C-alpha cells in the first residue's frame, strides 16, 4: 500500500521517467518535422497519420475512461462506436443534416453507455473483473449481430462532413477531411478535459474513480458517476466512429475492429490510466503505422494489426505503465 501511494505521487509529480519521455516525444516531433520538410510524401503521410491517430486516440481515451472508472477493458467499445455511427447514418437517412445527426448521436451514445453500465456491467462488477470482461465480449458479438441484422453487412455511404477540398501547403496536399477529423477530435478531448477538470460533475467522477468509498462518504453517488463515465466513453467512441467513417469512405460493420486494436495499442503506449497518454499514444500509433507501412518493406499493410500487437507487447515488456501511466502496484 505504501508503494502504491508513493508511486502514484511520483506519477503525478512526473516521476523520474517523465523528462525522458518528454525528451523522446520532442525528438520524435522534430524528426517528423524534418522529414516532412524534406519529403512531400513523408509530410502527407504524417498529416494523414495524425488525423487517423487522433481517431485511435479518442477511442483509446474512451477505453481509458472506462478503465479508470471500473478497472474493466471494454472490448465492446469499438463495436459500440460502430453501432452509434450506424445510428447517425440512420438519422441522416431520416433527413437530419450531418451535424444535427452528429450531435443527436453523441447524446444517444451518452445515454446508451450509461444504461449499459447500469444494466449489464454493474451487476457483475462486484463478482470479478473477468466476469465484466466476458460481458463486454458478449456485447461485442451482440452489437455486431444486431447491426448486421438491422442494416446488413453491405457498404453504406454517409455524406462527407468536411467536403473533398484539398489544401496545398508548400508542395504538400492536405485534405480538408484530415484537418477536420483532427480538429473535431481535439475539441472533443478538450471539452472532456474541461468537464473533468473544472466542473463539479467531473470532480465527482474523478473522486468516484480514485476512491469510491471516500467519495461516497462526501455524498458522491459513486455508482451513478461510474455509469456516467461509461456514458462519456460511449460518447467519445461515437466521435471516433463518426470520424473514422469518412476516412474509410464507407460504413460497414467491421469499421472499428482494426481501430479497436490500434486504440488498445495507443492506450497501452500512453499508460492505461492516463487520458493524455491515450491521445498522444493514438497520434504516435497513427503516424508510425502510416510511415512504417510506407517505408519499411518488411511491414506491408496486412501487418498493421500485428504491428500494433508488437507495440503492445514491447511496451508491456519494457515499460508496463506506458509513457504516462502510473505503475500498477502488483508485487508478486
Amino acid at each position, binding site marked *: 500500500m505504501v508503494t502504491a501511494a508513493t508511486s502514484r505521487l511520483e506519477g503525478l509529480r512526473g516521476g523520474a521517467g517523465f523528462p525522458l519521455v518528454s525528451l523522446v516525444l520532442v525528438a520524435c516531433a522534430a524528426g517528423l518535422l524534418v522529414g516532412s520538410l524534406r519529403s512531400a510524401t513523408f509530410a502527407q503521410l504524417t498529416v494523414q497519420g495524425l488525423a487517423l491517430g487522433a481517431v485511435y486516440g479518442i477511442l483509446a481515451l474512451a477505453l481509458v475512461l472506462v478503465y479508470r472508472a471500473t478497472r474493466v477493458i471494454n472490448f465492446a467499445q469499438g463495436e459500440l462506436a460502430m453501432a452509434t455511427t450506424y445510428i447517425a447514418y440512420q438519422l441522416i437517412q431520416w433527413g437530419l443534416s450531418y451535424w444535427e445527426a452528429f450531435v443527436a448521436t453523441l447524446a444517444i451514445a451518452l445515454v446508451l453507455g450509461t444504461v449499459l453500465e447500469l444494466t449489464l456491467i454493474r451487476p457483475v462488477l462486484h463478482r470479478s473483473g473477468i466476469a465484466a470482461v466476458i460481458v463486454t465480449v458478449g456485447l*461485442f458479438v451482440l452489437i455486431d449481430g444486431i447491426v448486421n441484422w438491422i442494416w446488413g453487412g453491405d457498404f453504406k455511404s454517409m455524406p462527407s462532413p468536411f467536403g473533398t477540398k484539398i489544401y496545398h501547403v508548400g508542395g504538400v496536399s492536405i485534405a480538408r477531411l484530415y484537418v477536420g477529423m483532427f480538429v473535431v477530435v481535439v475539441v472533443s478531448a478538450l471539452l472532456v478535459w474541461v468537464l473533468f477538470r473544472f466542473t463539479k460533475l467531473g470532480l465527482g467522477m474523478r473522486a468516484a474513480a480514485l476512491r469510491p468509498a471516500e467519495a461516497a462518504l462526501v455524498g458522491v453517488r459513486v455508482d451513478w458517476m461510474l455509469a456516467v463515465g461509461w456514458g462519456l466513453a460511449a460518447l467519445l467512441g461515437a466521435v471516433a466512429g463518426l470520424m473514422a467513417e469518412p476516412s474509410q469512405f464507407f460504413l460497414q460493420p467491421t469499421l472499428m475492429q482494426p481501430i479497436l486494436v490500434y486504440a488498445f495499442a495507443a492506450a497501452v503506449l500512453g499508460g492505461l490510466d492516463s487520458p493524455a497518454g491515450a491521445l498522444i499514444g493514438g497520434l504516435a500509433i497513427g503516424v508510425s503505422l502510416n510511415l512504417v507501412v510506407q517505408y519499411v518493406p518488411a511491414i506491408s499493410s496486412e501487418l498493421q494489426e500485428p504491428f500494433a500487437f508488437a507495440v503492445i507487447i514491447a511496451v508491456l515488456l519494457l515499460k508496463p505503465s506506458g509513457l504516462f501511466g502510473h505503475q500498477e502496484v502488483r508485487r508478486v
Partner: protein
Amino acid sequence: MRSRIATVASLLIAAAVLSVLPFVISDYNVSLVARVGVFFIAVLGLDILTGYTGQISIGHGAFMAIGGYTTAVLSRDHDTNLIVTMLIAFAICFVVGLLVGLPALRLSGAYLALVTFALAVSVPLLPLKWSSFLGGRDGVQTSHEVSNLWLYGVAWAASAVLFVLAWLILRGRVGRAFRAVRDSEIAAVASGIELPVYKTLAFGISAAYAGVAGSLFVLANNGFAAPDEFGVVLSLQILIGAAVAGLGSLWGVLAGAAFVGLLPSVSSSVPVIGSTHGQDVVFGAAVILVMLLLPDGFAGLLTRIRRLARA
C-alpha cells in the same frame, strides 16, 4: 465416495452415448456432433486456464489458427498423417502458449485480456503476409478430406484423451498450484509455489488444447484453412463456451461446447433471426444472460439443481 462413483458413472454414460450416437443419427448430424467435440477440446483448454488459474484469454482462436494451419500445411506439403499433424499442432501450440504466457506473467487481468485479444486479431493476418507459404486469402487445403465418421471418431477420442489428461494434471500438485494462483497470487508465492512456472505452464497447456481443436476445426471445415475461418469471433466463441461451461465439470464443458458448436446450425433454422448474423445476436445475448443469471455457468446450475434435488 458417492460423488466419485457418480463421476465415473456419468463419464461412462457420456462415453456410451457418444459411441452409439454416430450409428443412429444422420451423416449430417454426425458432422454436427463432431463439431461439438472440436469445441469441447477448445473450451476444455480455456477452462483449464481461466477456471483454474484465473487468467483470461480472448485469443484462443489464435492458437486454433496455428494448430489448424499446422495440419493443413503439413498435409499439403508432406501428406503427413493427420493424427501426427495433430500431435505436432499440440507441441507447437504448447510452445507458443508458453511464449505468450511469459509476458502474461507480468500482467494483471486487464492487460492479459488486451494482449490475447490483439493476438487473436493479429495471427489470422499472418497468412496474408506470407501468402506463398500460408496460402494468403485463398487458404490452404489438406491433401485429402476426411469422412464425417472419421472426424467424429477422432474428435471424440481426442476429447476423451485430453479430458483424462486434464484430469490427471489437475488432480495433483499442479492442479493445487493452479488453484492457488487463482485464489491469491501473493498467498501462492508465500506458500512456496513457483508462480511464474505454473502461470506459464497453464498457458502452454491451454494453448496446446486449442491447437488440437484447431487441427480438427480445419478438418471439419473440409480440410480448408483460411484466415476468415479464424476471425476474432472464433476466439470470442470459445470464451463464450467457457463462460457457459462454468468451472470444472464435464457436463458444463459439454454444454458450453454444444452451445457454441451447434448454435450456428440451429439458429439458422429459427425464423426472424435466422440470418447469418442471427447467431451472433443469440451468442451475445446468451453469454450476457449467463453471466448475469448463472454466475458459475452451466456447471454451477447443475450443482444448484443437485442441491435442490437432495433437499
